[in-house]
């Protein structure tokens, strides 16, 4: 079971939504987790006591096997099992490094599977935010390789 903690980013986002939309409250529940944000705007008009609160209620999760986290946003995931190479050959310059801008279809790394070198192409144009694997690292299907945004 995950540690009982508030997702700060989510709360800030909801607070912004309240401001933008002029709503007084947003409550959202999914998969046994629930969050409610209240602007307290109402309470200003009356007894100021009411909670201008952020409550995150931890509903005990159903005893399902804990699922793995999904890949981060903008992640390029491995389409196959194999060994990942960041450069065309040992000692050569890496195809890309963090900060590089890439164009859609540009080779960003290679995965060797069954002695075949498979070039992995950038799915979209963008900037390489992070490279998540080391050169020569074995990777499995669906493993996050790098983040391009």
């Amino acid at each position: 079971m995950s540690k009982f903690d508030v997702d700060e980013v989510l709360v800030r986002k909801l607070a912004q939504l309240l401001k933008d939309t002029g709503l007084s409250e947003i409550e959202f529940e999914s998969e046994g987790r629930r969050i409610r944000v209240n602007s307290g705007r109402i309470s200003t008009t009356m007894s100021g006591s009411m909670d201008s609160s952020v409550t995150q209620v931890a509903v005990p999760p159903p005893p399902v096997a804990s699922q793995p986290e999904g890949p981060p946003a903008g992640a390029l995931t491995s389409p196959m099992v194999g060994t990942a190479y960041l450069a065309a050959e040992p000692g050569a310059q890496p195809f890309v490094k963090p900060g590089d801008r890439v164009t859609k279809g540009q080779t960003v790394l290679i995965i060797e599977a069954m002695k075949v070198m498979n070039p992995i192409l950038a799915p979209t144009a963008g900037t390489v935010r992070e490279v998540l694997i080391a050169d020569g690292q074995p990777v499995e299907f669906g493993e996050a390789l790098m983040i391009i945004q």
Partner: protein
Amino acid sequence: MFEKVLIANRGEIALRIHRACREMGIRTVAVHSTADAEAMNVRLADESVCIGPPPSRDSYLNMAAIISAATITGADAIHPGIGFLSENAAFAQMVEDHGITFIGPAPEHLIMMGDKVQAKDAAKRFGIPVVPGSEGEITGEADAKRIAGETGYPVLIKAAAGGGGKGMRVATSEAELMAAYTMARTEAKASFGNDAVYIEKYLSHPRHIEIQIIGDSHGNVVHLGERDCSLQRRHQKVLEEAPSPALNAEQRARIGKIAADAMKTMGYKSVGTIEFLFQDGEFYFIEMNTRLQIEHPVTEMITGIDLVREQIRVASGAPLSFKQSDVTIDGHAIECRINAEDPETFLPSPGRVTDFHAAGGLGVRVDSALYSGYRVPPNYDSLIAKLVVHGRTRNESLMRLRRALEEMVIGGIKTNIPLHSRLIAAPDFINGAYDIRWLEKFVAET
């Protein structure tokens, strides 16, 4: 002996193989689809590699992904388990070409027994009794008439590439022959992309009796007696027992020797099962399964031999750890295949298992990868557990099975446990008086 074995399968059989490896001090690599990331065999394995999305063709049938997984984890052998790639000669060859041991028979034996016509020819060559009928593929309507006449009605028309009952038709007289012949060919074409069919004698009340054999790379082959798998529905085995209530010691010894001698001649060097129809004291070869069988625990319970352990040993080049004279049949064993399906409609029932409680105590064995909270994925077959009991007599194991079924709890999904409970209470079953068509009738009538 191997250092590390990759288990190219899923579910209870992957767990079964993991257990054998652990007990031999061999490290295990579990490969799995994204649907099986939380599977018990994956959790227990020393290493795991996700090899693809849920569809089998992209994961458990994905040869490149599996061999890559073996390469990056440094596995020195691959156990293919049951189904999937276990009888795929191309895969076996590819594994060997990568310098990895395929835990199974030689590719040529997979090929030989993979095609029904070739297999029947081989069986005859090796002295295994076969069902009388056409020597090979039927060349046309005239040929069909002639052979059916010689064989004697009723006859069965079967797809050469067939399996699971697809492309099978019975003709009880020459009048029915042509229609049956045409239908069988059409179905065969549709199911296997190959309309080759053959004709054989149709048996009206046979039992399904199969002989377990195991050979090593030193020319030794031993048989471990039979299993009676007559209780089938839609050609799927539901409950298996050994010894068969229908065989006597002389028949057991005779067919066992025939099977073992044939495998010696063939040079077979792994576990394998030769399936027969048995009627009126005669055995007729159906096919050979060149792999482990789902129901192998039944044989393990009455012989005390760990078949998977032995299969791994012989694959590593070691000789069999026992001789034919060491094999003794002790007591009686029964296996119930527990499927995630509606016991009435037989529709699959995947989903989350809210409660799992296995039967326990003396003489009870449960092989299952279930646990409370596990989700049975909808992508694969519905076998979720095997309940196996052993007793000193058939009656003792029947009584034990009854109380064990009472103890099994699988909540949240539907299972065929109620069917098994009804089945073992049926007088015909208790008397051992059933053939391969009995269960279909039983299900239809109750």
